[in-house]
């Protein structure tokens, strides 16, 4: 029997796993007829999920936590048993603003700390606060941007203007002079670079080398009531993710995503993030960044609870929620490694032994405890070297206050 499933998504390169699951037949193999519902704002994607118009959604990980904590319109308990990708964001600014930074873009990208300090020094020289577009208050992008700015003593709530706009409007807003730069998921940064409007200032992968990004969110109640369907979907996504990570499929994947019903942008722009060949300034040779966006390897889809708690720590840090143990527990429980384990128990997917880890502690590829198969975690450092211990959130937060 075929199960009909509707999943909402935004036109972004990291919708790849959902698109591949549908178009390459992985969903069908599991008896799922997948309908992908294109949305143009996170608010509408959220409402479609919360009010039951879709069964699941490709969601910003911090938004899933925020909706569960009641911080974004109608509160609803959401559950994320699967990460659709890690990394994939890029910060771009107009050439006027970027002129104050290291001119060699490869070196600029490789040294986010130096670039942040150059940026901080330049704020005094510009005659007004830079206006930077972010896709949502509760986005990984906003959190990385805030983290990066604050590392150089910039107060993201006072020294710059953060303006919220959806990814698909970023390039037009830049053209109209409404924003001086933006941080968004691909291919929108590349689209602004290609249009000659902007150049790359930083990439997400250099801020947090394995940054949590989009997750697959369900209403928790629906997830609990439909274990068989959820398991079949997760198995289909795991196979789709492996297909997406395979370099041999990137050209085909880019063609799929380029279609008007998905991302509706040229395939060659989309390919850049998939292959990690980022053009940072129009007309220049690409800068190689092989970990720009990950779908499958290193157990990327595994929803580490510690990553949900890192998101929570940032919500507290920026005064978006008040810290207490019960709220922290609720935030951490949005990520559901238990469901991931159940769904993929009999597959050949590498399965981490733990559900929490230190975030930002791995320098070099590290073989870790795995219940099955070999699992090597990639380097996951934050650029400033801080380590997040999910058992010691208060200490972690105290470190930021002292550092400012």
């Amino acid at each position: 029997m075929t199960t009909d499933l509707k999943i909402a998504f935004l036109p972004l390169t990291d919708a790849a796993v959902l698109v591949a699951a549908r178009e390459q037949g992985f969903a069908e193999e599991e008896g799922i007829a997948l309908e992908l519902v294109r949305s143009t704002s996170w608010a509408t994607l959220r409402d479609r999920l919360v009010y039951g118009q879709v069964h699941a959604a490709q969601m910003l990980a911090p938004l899933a936590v925020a909706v569960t904590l009641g911080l974004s319109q109608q509160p609803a308990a959401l559950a994320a048993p699967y990460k659709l990708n890690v990394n994939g964001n890029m910060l771009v600014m107009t050439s006027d603003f970027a002129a104050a930074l290291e001119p060699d873009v490869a070196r600029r990208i490789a040294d986010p700390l130096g670039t942040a300090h150059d940026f901080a020094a330049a704020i005094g020289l510009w005659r007004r606060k830079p206006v930077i577009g972010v896709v949502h208050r509760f986005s990984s992008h906003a959190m990385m941007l805030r983290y990066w700015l604050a590392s150089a003593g910039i107060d993201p709530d006072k020294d710059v203007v953060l303006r919220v706009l959806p990814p698909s409007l970023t390039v037009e807003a830049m053209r109209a002079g409404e924003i001086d730069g933006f941080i968004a998921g691909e291919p929108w940064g590349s689209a602004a670079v290609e249009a000659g409007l902007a150049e790359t200032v930083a990439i997400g992968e250099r801020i947090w080398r394995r940054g949590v990004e989009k997750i697959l969110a369900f209403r928790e109640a629906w997830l609990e009531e439909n274990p068989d369907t959820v398991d079949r979907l997760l198995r289909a996504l795991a196979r789709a993710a492996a297909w997406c990570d395979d370099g041999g499929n990137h050209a085909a994947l880019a063609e799929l995503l380029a279609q008007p019903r998905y991302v509706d942008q040229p395939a060659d722009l989309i390919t850049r993030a998939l292959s990690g060949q980022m053009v940072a300034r129009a007309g220049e040779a690409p800068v190689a960044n092989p970990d720009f966006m990950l779908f499958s390897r290193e157990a990327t889809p595994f929803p580490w609870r510690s990553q949900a708690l890192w998101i929570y720590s940032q919500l507290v840090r920026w005064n978006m929620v008040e810290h207490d143990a019960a709220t922290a527990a609720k935030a951490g429980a949005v990520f559901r490694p238990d469901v991931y384990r159940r769904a993929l128990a009999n597959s050949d997917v590498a399965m981490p032994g733990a559900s929490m880890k230190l975030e930002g502690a791995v320098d070099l590829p590290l073989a870790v405890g795995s219940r099955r198969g070999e699992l090597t975690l990639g380097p996951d450092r934050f650029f400033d070297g801080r380590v997040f211990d999910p058992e010691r959130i208060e200490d972690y937060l105290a470190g930021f206050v002292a550092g400012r």
Partner: protein
Amino acid sequence: MRIVIIDDSGLRATVLEEGLREAGYDDIHIVPPRGAFVARLERMAPDVVLMDLGSPSRDTLEEMLTVSRALARPIAMFVDQSDEAMIGAAIDAGVSAYVVDGLRKERVKPVLELAVRRFNAFAKIQGELDEARTALSDRKIIDRAKSILMNQRSLSEQDAYALLRSAAMNQGKKIVEVSQALITASDLLGGGGL
């Protein structure tokens, strides 16, 4: 009650505004979601904001509702979360509504119901327009395929059409699909323009 409609499509906003005025609401403003629309909206201090669910500017609006100091009372989507039928109808129709805290649901409900009806009416008009447009372009494609056949196989117009129709029936396709395939093949073979 001050109602602001945020909309890019002149026609949809007009359809909605007319309906609201007929129902006796007279403090209605239409704001297109461009440029500094958020600042305009703040100055207006609306009680109800109506917006197309498909508008990409909803995130911008919600951010304003979160951080604005000018709006003394927080605004939430849907005043009565327990009315699931109403919420379902609104989302199906593509209506999103933001309502200031404290406004009684009996006052808001008729506005929402009207917005849902008008959005549905607008979608119907839009659908009919699209259908008419498709029919027109379908006819152009079929005409071009006919002229290719008439030129290359020296057929009458009637025979050319009959050939297309029988090919479509044999392949279980629409005539327009067969015509499109013929045009593509003809273009590839260098017969373009005919």
